[in-house]
């Protein structure tokens, strides 16, 4: 790209823009945080994401309550949701090793 024709923004202008963006974004960012990823509570094929090495997509969990598949649940409810695979008996906030 031709830098001669490009407007350059001063450090102050960039700082002002980023600063205002952070203050605008602060509220919605908190509102979006009222869900949490909960491992071990999704029914087969109904996980929201992460099941098995290398997969990134929803709906790939092969068994009910799969230990490495998560589902988004309202914040604070994960560790109160029963999970048949979890050693604690409830969902966990990180992938775990299923009890046998």
């Amino acid at each position, binding site marked *: *790209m031709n*830098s001669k*024709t*490009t*407007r*350059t*923004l001063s*450090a*102050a*202008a*960039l*700082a*002002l*823009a*980023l*600063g*205002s*963006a*952070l203050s*605008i*974004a*602060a509220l*919605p*960012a908190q509102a*979006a945080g009222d*869900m949490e990823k909960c491992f071990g509570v999704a029914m087969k094929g109904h996980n*929201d*994401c*992460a099941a098995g090495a290398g997969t*990134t*997509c*929803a709906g790939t969990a092969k068994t009910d309550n799969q230990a490495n598949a998560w589902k*988004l649940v309202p914040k604070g409810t994960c560790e109160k949701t029963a999970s048949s695979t979890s050693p604690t008996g409830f969902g966990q906030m990180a992938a775990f090793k299923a009890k046998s």
Partner: protein
Amino acid sequence: MKLQESFSAALLNPRTPPPTGIVGYNDDIDRRFAVYSNNVQSGLINALATSYPVVAQLVGEAFFQAMAQMFIQKYPPDSPVMSTYGSQFAGFINSFAPARSVPYLADVARLERLCVQAFHAADICAVNPGLLTQALDNPEGLAQLHLQLHPGVASLQSPYAIAALWAAHQSLGQIQGLNPRQPQSVLVLRNELRVEVFTVSSGCAVFVHLLKGGNTLGLAAGHALEADPDFDLGQALALLISHNTITGLQPTHEALP
């Protein structure tokens, strides 16, 4: 190898007879091959209709089927993953003469492709906003900052009102009073599990496109202002931050190739 090639070519073209050398338990080879061929083609057409529902609505089922039929002959799948099938569809529509009466069709297809890509993009968490706040401590370094965006983020500029057309075809917007010749730029992203489409300024589209290409904050913002004097950098950054699309930042001084 010869048989395999003629077999696969015949599968995708309903007018090609089955290749010689095929045997079956009865003599009805033509009919049996036609059943297989029909399954392959309708499977691919259905995959396209699933990825491009608004394109299908805009032209109607019969037109879409015929257009898809010609597309699959020209672009047979090169991956077993059907969600990636049809990435050349917008380009094909652009050069498909019968579709010229719907000039915005190719750009609507581009938008729908970006939505599919965003939906299947890898799952990467947003950067801690605290790191962005820290970057403010060194204003002189901001121009050289690299912002990494979520892989599902993409922007698109069109001479047509593609976001409004797209929204109007899934009960998100109104078709009444819609002027398709109104230029629109769109930003597609995935926030958590939802694919979201925003109408943005052309400057914002340029800005996101350049950031996605690995350019620095200073360069991307400069070019965005050049393209659109009304470009609001603060607003564009706020949109990206609040929808969890900034996944990392690197205060590097490396020259980009």
